């Protein structure tokens, strides 16, 4: 009798509405490491998973956007705490994809630092992007930034730092998102972190699968309010922008060669905000 322990293999599923369902289509694909060896099976999302994820994101939007910015900051910081605890797992997963030990560790550190950085922005962006406007009349006049709504995100190829860099700014300001990523590892591990860290279900939804298949459905969906084309296939980007125009989605189309390690600035925070201006009579 062999005393060797049997491997506990893992199946990577989707992350929709705080749960981890398989794809509605029943499809899956094999994830291999850099040497082509089998790592895991992952779900391949279909257009109906996109639809379900948008419903989940819409449902979560009201609660998430009406939380105080301070509370959102606390929750995002909590996510960073949980990321810190799973560091070794993330490093392993990046290494299985072919990264060296030191670069993988640096990437995970950078991703956690990026998350903390965005967590700090939640209650400050209002002061930076909003204003008390001087007007000619007896009124207080305020402009305040408000979240756009459900944001469709096509995650870039950079599997952890890129993913964190597109998700964190979207949810920091009170949006919810449906994210399509082609790399289940470590994306779904990130989803496991999000699922166990006070983030309400549905605020982040992660679909693994082929961006070329899912992106058109996300771009044309009438209940999606904005689109981030960070990881859009280059040949599709223009047609996605056209589809997004149907219901006037905000579209962010970053340069294809974005350096995710560089200081991101506030551009991604302000890309998915609406400005609300309120006139309030003075006195009387």
């Amino acid at each position, binding site marked *: 009798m062999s005393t060797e322990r049997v491997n506990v293999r893992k199946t990577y599923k989707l992350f929709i509405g705080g749960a981890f369902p398989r794809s509605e289509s029943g499809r899956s694909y094999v994830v291999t490491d850099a040497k082509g060896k089998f790592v895991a099976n992952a779900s391949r999302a279909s257009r109906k998973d996109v*639809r379900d994820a948008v419903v989940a994101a819409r449902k979560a939007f009201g609660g998430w956007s009406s939380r105080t910015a301070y509370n959102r900051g606390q929750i995002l910081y909590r996510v960073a705490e949980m990321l810190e605890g799973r560091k070794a797992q993330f490093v392993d997963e990046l290494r299985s994809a072919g990264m060296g030990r030191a670069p993988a560790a640096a990437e995970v550190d950078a991703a956690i630092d990026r998350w903390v950085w965005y967590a700090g922005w939640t209650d400050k962006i209002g002061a930076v992007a909003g204003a008390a406007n001087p007007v000619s009349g007896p009124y207080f006049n305020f402009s305040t930034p408000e979240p756009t709504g459900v944001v469709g995100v096509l995650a870039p190829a950079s599997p952890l730092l890129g993913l964190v860099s597109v998700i964190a700014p979207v949810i920091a300001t009170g949006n919810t998102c449906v994210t399509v990523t082609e790399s289940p590892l470590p994306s779904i591990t990130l989803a496991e972190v999000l699922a166990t860290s006070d983030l309400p279900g549905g605020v982040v939804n992660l679909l693994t699968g082929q961006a070329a298949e899912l992106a058109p459905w996300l771009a044309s*969906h*009438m209940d999606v309010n904005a689109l981030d084309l960070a990881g859009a296939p280059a040949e599709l980007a223009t047609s996605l922008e056209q589809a997004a125009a149907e219901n006037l989605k905000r579209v962010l189309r970053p340069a294809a060669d974005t350096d995710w390690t560089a200081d991101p600035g506030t551009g991604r925070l302000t890309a998915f905000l609406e400005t609300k201006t309120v006139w309030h009579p003075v006195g009387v």
Partner: protein
Amino acid sequence: MTAEPIALDRQGVDDIVSSAASLRRFLHGLPGVDQVGAQERAARLATRSIKKSAKAEAIDLAISMVDLTTLEGADTPGKVRAMCAKAAHPDPSDPSVPRVAVVCVYSDLVAEAVRALRGTGVGVASVATAFPAGRAPLDAKLADTRRAVEDGATEIDMVIDRGAFLAGDHRKVFDEIVATKQACGDAHLKVILETGELVTYDNVRRASWLAMLAGADFIKTSTGKVAPAATLPVTLVMLEAVRDFRAQTGRQVGVKPAGGIRTTKDAIKYLVLVNETAGPDWLTPEWFRLGASSVLNDLLMQRRKLTTGVYGGPDYQTLD
């Protein structure tokens, strides 16, 4: 029509309802419902996949079967008028969408609904007889019914006295249905069994037969105020009852599940159930209705998905 012989003629029905004892003997002599079997059958039929052109047809059929309902204490004349406008033109941007079957309101709002729907072809149904509890003296229930009919209601949704039914006083329930049917005059009578309070499928079958023997034009699952409301197995039992009733008496009775039907998928499951249980004869708005309000928005959203090819959202629909 099925070819089965008519086993229960006018005389046979009169014999059954001639006394409390014979009525009771008949209802308790009905074959018991196989609970597991009914649930299994309903669950299996619910897995049927209806796609593309069949789905488009099912959606239009379902829209035409909707009894668009608002039964809230906070109903206002304005809300009823808005709902009537929606009933006549469910999707104002697409005239090919069929209108719904009827608008269903409380009896004091019937006049408002009738005024708003004049000339549209959409009927007005009114709940009556102390809906939803049914706990009021018979005089009050009948006055409620007569008033609704006078105001122009074409259909009356009455509730049975569940207390009497559960206490075994079938005769009282029967007499109330007969009296209400008389008060209805030309208006169609739908009898709400409130299956959520009847506890067992056997009771649902008995209540269905009781209502049909008393002259119901429709049997309806629930008020929507009690959980569980309509479920597939309960509707299956009721569809079997109307099928058997027509086979034995020659009279066709309609079925209306109400409450808890929220999505297009739900609605299509019911249509499959009707087709497979009672048969295609029931697959028209004349004999099958869906009591609901929110399902209409989902039906319209799915319909638009089929015509435009992109997913829609609640931003493009009326709130209700």
